[in-house]
Every structure is written in C-alpha cells, then in structure tokens.
C-alpha cells in the first residue's frame, strides 16, 4: 500500500501551488539566519554576541511594499472573508473541512518524509492517510490521532533544506505571505505533487481553486488572533513576522537540540546601564 501511495504522491499534474500546504510552508530560511556570529555594529565596537540570527532580505524594499499592499487587501477582503466563514459554519463543520484538507496533504507529507530518509514518520503518514480516508470518511474525521498517530508536516522546501539547499532571499508574497526563495519553490513542487494533481481523480481547475480558497480562508481564520496581536503590538510588524517565519522554517530543518551553540548570548547588562530594579524582591536569589 505504501508503495502505491508513494507512486500516487509522486504523480504530478497542474496544481495551484499552495493549495494544501499554505499552512506549513517555509522552512529553512533561517538556516543561514542562524549564523553564530553577527555582524559587528560599528568599527571599534565589540562584535555583538547577543545579536539574533542574521536576516537575508536583499529585496526588503519591494517586500515591504508588497507587505503594505497585502495588509490593505487583508483588511478589505481576506479578514472579512475569514470572519464570514466563521459565522457561516459551526466549529465542527470547520474542523471537518480542515481535516479533509490535511488529509489531502498526507501523501505529499509521506513522499517528503521518504525523501528525507525518515521512514518511520513516512509510515505514520501512510497509515494516517489510509485510516482517515476510510474509517475517517474521506478525511473528515482524524481518527488516527486518538489512535496515537498524530499528524506531522513535511514539505518539499523542508526536504531541500535537509539536503543542504540554503533558503536564499526572504520573500513576501501577496495573499500567501512570508516565504523565501527555496520554500516558495518547494511550495510549487508540493502543488504539483499533490494527490489533487492525479489525473484519475478528475479534480478540475475550478475545484482546485475552490479548495485553495477554502484553505486560505480557514488558515486566515485560524491565525486571526495572532495576526491581530502582531499588528497591534509589534513596533515593526513586517520584521516580527519575518523573524518568526525564518526561525520557524529553520527549526523544521535543523534539529534544535543540535543548534544551541548558534544561539545568541544573553549577557548580563553592565552595571552602569543596568535597568532599575523592580519593586518586588526576587524570590529566586
């Protein structure tokens, strides 16, 4: 069965790239972002060992323009659509929709697990797909999870990262948001590799567009409180999203327990500039 699934997943046809994987895209951009040494601030200054991972965003000017445009689009269309979707459908229905979308993605996850040499994870994806597609009624119910087989993500951008491909420049794409060159390309491959691209399934372009739209709307809804939080609290929402995205993708490629040496240092502030003490006494000292 697994080989059948693998073969299915490997078939390619036309597909809208982020149809199924909008939620889990980008990966490794941060791989290079986490270089241990940060650039020196000014000549004569010590190298700031406390600087976070480097950001490679050579197209920042254009990206920020797109970000701003996208923000307007979000206010006018994307967010209202997501909130309308929430009002229109009760939560159990929306959960079923999300489960179906996740299940469609499972064979692509399996394929990438195998490309990354993660056979056990791949086996889990295969079993999940079989159980959820049948007992779970075409994926509406995630019956594999209560059986102890939780969902995990794998995508082609991640595979490329694990093969050593660097992320390349950061990118902000209208509607779909943050990505980078490697992971954006990976998304396109994921779209082609989707089971929706299978010829025998006869999923026509209008259906694929519909699936993509529903996926996007559901994703936007799931993110609503987080997006609002960033917009209202970050001093530079663009930079905050970029930082979070690049770190997240890096974490998908690099085992974090092996990357602790690359973390920036948390130096104690020099006494002269130490912030004022809090009113309370510390209970730990």
């Amino acid at each position, binding site marked *: 069965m697994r080989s059948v699934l693998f073969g299915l997943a490997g078939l390619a046809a036309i597909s809208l790239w982020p149809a199924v994987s909008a*939620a889990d895209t980008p990966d490794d951009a941060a791989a290079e972002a986490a270089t241990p040494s940060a650039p020196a601030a*000014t000549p004569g200054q010590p190298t700031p060992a406390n600087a976070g991972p480097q950001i490679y965003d050579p197209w920042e000017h254009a990206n920020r323009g797109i970000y701003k445009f996208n923000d307007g689009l979000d206010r006018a269309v994307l967010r209202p659509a997501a909130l309308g979707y929430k009002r229109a459908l009760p939560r159990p229905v929306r959960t079923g929709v999300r489960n179906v979308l996740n299940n469609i993605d499972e064979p692509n996850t399996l394929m990438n697990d195998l490309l990354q040499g993660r056979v056990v994870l791949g086996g889990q994806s295969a079993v999940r797909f079989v159980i959820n597609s049948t007992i779970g009624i075409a994926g509406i119910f995630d019956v594999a*999870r209560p059986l102890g087989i*939780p969902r995990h993500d794998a995508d082609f951008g991640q595979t490329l990262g694990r093969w050593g491909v660097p992320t390349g420049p950061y990118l902000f794409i209208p509607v779909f948001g943050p990505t980078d060159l490697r992971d954006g390309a990976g998304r396109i491959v994921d779209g082609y590799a989707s089971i929706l691209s299978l010829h025998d399934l006869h999923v026509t372009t209008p259906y694929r567009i519909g699936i993509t739209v529903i996926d996007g709307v559901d994703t936007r809804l*799931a993110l609503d409180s987080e997006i609002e939080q960033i917009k209202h*609290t970050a001093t530079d929402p663009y930079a905050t999203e970029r930082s979070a995205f690049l770190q997240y*993708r890096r974490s998908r490629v690099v085992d*974090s*327990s092996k990357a602790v040496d690359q973390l920036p240092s948390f130096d104690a502030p020099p006494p002269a500039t130490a912030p004022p003490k809090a009113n309370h006494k*510390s209970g730990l000292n």
Partner: protein
Amino acid sequence: MRVVSKSLAIAALALAAGGALAVVPSPFTPPAMAQGARNAGAEQYVQVQAQRALNILSQHRGDVATEKRMFRAFIDQVADVPRITYFVLGKYSRTISPAQQRDFATVFRAYASNVYESRLNEYHGETLKVTGSVARTPTDVIVQSQVSGGKLDQPVTVSWRVIAEGGGWKVVDVQVDGIWLAITQQQDFVSTIDNAGGNVQVLIDQLKGQVAKEEAASR
C-alpha cells in the same frame, strides 16, 4: 504562515505561562555538567515553575487587577528582566546612553506586560512535562518540554532557556515551534531602530505611545 503566527502566539502564551505566579524557591544544581549534557537542576526548575504557572493561570478569578499584579510579581521572580531588557536591544544595547537605557527599561516593562497580560485568560488546564535539556554552558541551559491538554489540539513543544546566576535559575527566553520569543522581540526592535537611522529614541517614543494608548483604552 499559519503555523508561524500560531507559534508566535503560543510563544507569547508560553511566556505568560512562565509568567504565572510561582513563588517556590528554585532548586539549584551546582554547575557541574559539561556542555551538551542534560542538566537535572534546570529541568526540575522549569518543571516546577512552569507547571505551577499553568495551574495558577488556569484558575480564573475574574479579578483582572489581581491577576495582573500577581503576574508581574511572578515575572520579576522567574524571568531575568535585566538580561532580557539588555538583550532585546541587540547591537544597540552597547551604544545607547545610560539615561536612554533606563528610559527604555521602564517602557519595555510596561509594554511587555501589556502584551502578555492580554492573554492571561487563555489557559484552561494545560499540563507541562519536561522532556530533556541541552546545556550550552553549565549555567546556560535549554530545557525542552511538552505542553498538552486544555484547549490544545495537539501537544506543543516548548523550550525554556534558563541561566543560572547567584544561586538560582531564571528564564531568559521561551521557544515554541522553533520561534524564540526574545529573539523575535530583538529583531522587531532592532529593525525599528535601523529604520530610524540608528536612533534608539524613536523606538522608546514609539513604545511610550503604545503604552499610553493601551492605558487609555483600559480606562
């Protein structure tokens, strides 16, 4: 995108969780272990403090003022606020004047409190289990944990970076799904200062504006 922002929010929650009301003195293991090894003292510290935080956060008293006060007291006990305050300025931490540093410390405290306090009521019986740790140095340890239950669909991996100083551990950063909260905060602030031509005062003024707005809204 989805996972990223979700993670960011969970990271905020995690810090708030770290920010609950633990008052128990930390068990402190003398730094005897090599780099890369596990550190039992740090693990125990996180297990006790973070679970305590989650427990207390899950009891909603309905008295917002009391919850906020206890939250701030907890943060001062468990988080190394001076270190975090210094860290989030990144390369600018070494170049700003002492007066600006003090100014920033005050407004950053108010700003961060507002950010996390807005999420204090989002806990519903989550439990935390420490799963391991990796020592960068004997006094700088990343403790890994899994948070599950409550309103979470799936267990969430949360890592805590704790630093030992003066006989106790303190939390300096929290990571959820690969995203470190303080690092993200630093990259937010440094970008803002970069775009102001390196003028830290622009960031301080912006934070003051946000805090004032928040206070006006909560009246």
